[in-house]
């Protein structure tokens, strides 16, 4: 790479970074981080209530609750901010002034994506901290004899594996939302993203569709969809970590590689579509 080319790349990254920081600041202004307060209250109140009504299963249930809430809150942020990343700028006509600045369309799309991923990263990091804090207190309040009977320690570091895959899944959903945001209105983008999220959890059924239909053509079509549509179920290892089941690093690496490749493909498609859009 020549010096001028690498300098151009760095400058381009800097522009992407500026857009990303702008998106993050906008999410802070939109009070998106308030959801962290709801998350913390949910966990703390849950930990108290669960102890009263779950016959000794409070730690397991708080683990489930924290992981599920991280996934769900992240999903809401990814979908409802993701769908507005581009379409909102178009709707508000602010896209004209943005494109008049020295920002290329690919830089704009990548910056928007990076900004929302940064917002999600901050959210997930704070949720992880709250999750471990609540479980740490619960563990501290319990006697050592009963702690010994738990399937896994309350603050089991293995839960980070589940949090990590949740984050990669949220990156993927953000990319889906961004893609739809470049081609349609916010409402349609939301419907399509949520639709793909649901389909993504049934995806494994498409792979073995020949067991339920006689038509080889239909089975082949279903198998095609299996490879094309995002497969989200493998990102869910919550049950495994809560029950102290091993989640191999190789599995995490391959699932992450799948997620990153899919995100890259979606971002490329978003850039291509957005670059060809005529805003006159």
């Amino acid at each position: 790479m020549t010096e001028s080319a690498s300098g151009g790349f760095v400058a381009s990254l800097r522009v992407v970074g500026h857009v990303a920081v702008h998106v993050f600041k906008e999410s802070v202004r939109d009070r998106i981080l308030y959801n962290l307060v709801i998350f913390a209250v949910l966990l703390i109140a849950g930990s108290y209530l669960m102890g009263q009504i779950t016959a000794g299963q409070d730690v397991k249930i708080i683990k489930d609750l924290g992981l599920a809430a991280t996934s769900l809150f992240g999903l809401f942020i990814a979908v409802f901010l993701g769908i507005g990343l581009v379409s909102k700028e178009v709707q508000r006509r602010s896209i004209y002034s943005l494109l008049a600045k020295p920002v290329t369309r690919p830089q704009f799309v990548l910056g928007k994506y990076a900004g929302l991923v940064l917002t999600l990263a901050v959210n997930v990091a704070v949720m992880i901290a709250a999750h471990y804090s609540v479980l740490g207190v619960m563990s501290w309040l319990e006697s050592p004899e009963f702690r010994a009977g738990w399937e896994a320690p309350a603050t089991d570091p293995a839960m980070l594996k589940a949090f990590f895959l949740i984050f990669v899944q949220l990156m993927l959903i953000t990319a889906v939302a961004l893609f739809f945001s470049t081609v349609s209105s916010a409402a349609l983008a939301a419907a399509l993203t949520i639709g793909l999220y649901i389909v993504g959890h049934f995806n494994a059924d498409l792979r073995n569709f020949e067991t339920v239909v006689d038509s080889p053509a239909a089975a082949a079509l279903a198998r095609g969809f299996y490879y094309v549509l995002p497969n989200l179920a493998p990102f869910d290892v919550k049950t495994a970590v809560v029950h102290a089941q091993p989640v191999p690093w190789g599995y995490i690496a391959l699932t992450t590689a799948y997620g990153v490749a899919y995100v890259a493909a979606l971002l490329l498609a978003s850039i291509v579509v957005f670059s060809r859009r005529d805003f006159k």
Partner: protein
Amino acid sequence: MPTEKAPSARVSPPLGGLGLALAIAVLLGGALAAQTARDNRYAAWETESELLYVQSGAALTRLGLAFDDLLADLYWIRAVQHYGSTKIADEADRTYDLLYPFLDLATTLDPRFKIAYRFGAIFLTEAYPDGPGRPEQAIALLEKGVEAMPERWQYLMDIGFIHYWWVHDYEAAAEWFRTASEVDGAPWWLEPLAATTLAQGGQRGGSRLLWQQLFETSDNEWLQAEAGRRLLQLDALDALDQLGLAAQAYRDRTGDWPRTWAQLIDIGLVPFEPLDPTGTGYILVPGTGEFELSSDSLLFPLPSEPEALPDPAS
């Protein structure tokens, strides 16, 4: 030249901050008053029975998307609540119809939900009216647990225990204990327990041994407390037997059954009015030679003991 003051874009509320807060408080108070009036005038709107909207675990697993675990927790909580609320309900015709479906759904959604199997089995076996008295459902639930986690010797032991304590099938119990003893990591005492069960089935000593093992090996506070309570019930049964002997001795001496504790104390057959292990007095049934556990006792009602095996010598 005097300049005209530009009109402010912000419109200040007509009431001011304090007035606004007061108005909100009054309105909320009005809502509260309306709610209280309604609650006082009309009975709470209750459905005739609890409903289970989705009965298929497979369907729920699909509908749950990535939140199966949380759904499993909800069904577990519903099972605990259903059991607890039904147990303390006043109705004579109380039923535990939804207990097994709740537990089945919880364990289908999360097949490794360990405690749901063991607690569930305890809830299901408890005799009516303290439970549904359905040992066959408890065994089915535990067998489902064994299928999901073949390494859990505890479930095999629990199945044996249900055969022993509730079904009174000592041969089946011994067979399950033997099967449990063959699982890797199972404790050494399971194999002799199988032999003891066959030899001493129905004797209180055998029951005590079983509950003692459950007490010592339970990995949960609630399970341990339940086993501890059963051990205290066995102590109470021992005490009632002793009191029966004292009454018989009284009758041998006086020709009549005792009518008061004082009669037994006066001739030294009991030192004082005895208390059960939780500190509640036993009840002397006057003129019958019988004694009962008070219904106020934390150990009430006492379990019906398994029938003892026939003495091989007789």
